């Protein structure tokens, strides 16, 4: 019943629906990268020095890049990486943020004060410079075994962890606010009176009610992380080759923008479309989940 109403409201937001569909298509296409690779009979890492900057052909629908690799397949694999980084980092920060927001809002008092001061402190930090410092620190000095620190996809995990460490503050604030108001609701009071445990109340009664703002904020985070990954790539601190990501493909293409402009256009366009779709989706979700706004329409 609630789901039905949500869907009806969401469906009214046409741009959001289109965005959701677009994201779905992108995700499915990225997931299907190995099959596309197989079907085209090309290899994402298949370097061919004789086929550099090839024009679109039956074999390579979007042409080839500076090493003769198939651009389409690389874009799909890059989409896997970029979308994974975006979603994983957003989910991780959502989990941390929801947890902290719930605790702070439910228990209040000293704990709330402490957690919110930490949140304020983190918000006060200049994010990008810190990411640069943290991106360059030597993981082995922190006791992380060199096998993990030096792994090929370490750059990927590093970004996810860093974003999660700093990105949870928005969600935490939103969830805390929502928890504060939910705690005053009658059914929560009733549950407390009936002697239900704090954990049960938080998980069963409050969480569902604070999910809406968290979901919206998380959606928006996905877009921001994808953009952030492209900035880090621009600085040479992003996803490392040979793993393709939209961010590093775009960065690599900028120098050759005169010779092979399409190499810059495709990843740039995909980042643009994905982030805009994510934002519109978040917008639609907000309208659909927030009864105030829709009620007044």
């Amino acid at each position: 019943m609630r789901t039905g109403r949500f869907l009806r409201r969401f469906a009214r937001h046409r741009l959001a629906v289109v965005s959701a569909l677009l994201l779905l298509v992108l995700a499915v296409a990225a997931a299907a990268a190995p099959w596309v690779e197989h079907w085209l009979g090309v290899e994402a890492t298949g370097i061919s020095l004789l086929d550099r900057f090839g024009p679109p052909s039956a074999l390579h629908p979007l042409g080839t890049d500076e090493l003769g690799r198939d651009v389409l397949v690389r874009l799909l694999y890059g989409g896997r990486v970029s979308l994974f980084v975006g979603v994983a980092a957003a989910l991780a920060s959502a989990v941390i943020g929801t947890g902290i927001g719930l605790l702070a809002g439910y228990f209040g008092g000293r704990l709330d004060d402490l957690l919110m001061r930490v949140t304020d402190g983190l918000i006060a930090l200049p994010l990008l410079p810190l990411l640069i410092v943290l991106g360059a620190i030597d993981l082995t000095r922190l006791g992380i075994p060199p096998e993990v620190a030096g792994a090929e996809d370490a750059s990927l995990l590093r970004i996810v962890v860093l974003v999660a460490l700093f990105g949870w503050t928005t969600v935490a604030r939103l969830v805390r606010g929502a928890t504060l108001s939910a705690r005053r609701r009658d059914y929560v009071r009733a549950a407390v009176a009936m002697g239900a445990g704090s954990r049960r109340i938080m998980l069963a009664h409050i969480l569902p009610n604070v999910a809406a703002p968290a979901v919206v904020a998380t959606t928006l985070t996905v877009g921001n992380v994808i953009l952030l990954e492209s900035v880090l790539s621009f600085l040479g601190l992003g996803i490392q080759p040979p793993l393709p990501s939209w961010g590093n493909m775009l960065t690599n293409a900028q120098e050759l923008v005169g010779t092979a402009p399409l190499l810059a256009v495709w990843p740039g366009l995909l980042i643009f479309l994905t982030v805009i779709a994510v934002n519109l989706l978040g917008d639609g979700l907000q309208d659909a989940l927030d009864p105030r706004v829709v009620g007044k329409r």
Partner: protein
Amino acid sequence: MTRFLASRLLQALVVLLLMSFVITVLMTLMPGDPVDMMLAGNPRATPADAARLKALYGLDKPLLERYGHWLQAALVGDFGFSRLYAQPVLTILLPRLGNTLLLLGAAMALTLAVALPLGVYAARRPYGWADNAINLFCFAGISVPAFWLALLLILLFAVELQWLPASGLGPVGGEGWWERLPYLVLPVASLTLASIGGYTRYVRAAMMGELRQDYVRTARAKGLGEGRVVWRHALRNATIPIVTIVALEFGALFSGALVTETMFAWPGMGKLIYDSIMGNDLNVALVALLFATLTTLAGNLLADAAYAGLDPRISFKGDGA
């Protein structure tokens, strides 16, 4: 109010102190100390040379001792010298701060100048085609990778059309401020396009909130002109959340815009912070980052104060936050 201010100031001080220590630790966790990097280019350096240079830069002492020395000197206003630039830290920092404030200040002003009317317009006819178009435009601005946008602007306006200079602070030897203006256009445009979306949406949300209020209905019922209702009454109240957001973004003004500064060869704070981190120039990185933190804190405080000052319903009495 005084108690509130005092407690906030104390908090800010603690944050700054913690921050300075954390940055020092993080910078030491980065591999390769400055002397290692200097000597990497000099094959004939001996262990004695390395030890000598480390002593010269005080790198042979334990971290805590070094931090203590720095703190002592910093408290009396001596921030030391930049290792990279061989200049007092403030001599390096202040000109770039000026450049950044010019760039980001102009961008902020322009952003507000565009975002306010757009947001108000959108709020007056929500969910209409114009609102949808504005919405899409806003999201488009937010969603473009910054260096991609900068490159496109340079290629179009500097290379193809040759209307505007591609990069730089101003013409060499140019004295007048007006001569610098053309150099500001592209970087300001690329920053504005990126931030306009966020502000427009804040304005729109704030205005929609106000337009639903009873006093607006009353004013309309009383037959006041729609323009007067919107621009005089509703907008004035909607200013509160907007000012808050502007104040919160205040700190970003001082940490610069790294990507835009790099693409347009505009030596500002973002570039300085990045270069000092990458060049292991602890003194500069430390002060620059603290400065950015300080202004963010000041911005937060300002936001709270603006909130209280503009909205009579809020007071600071008995509220710790």
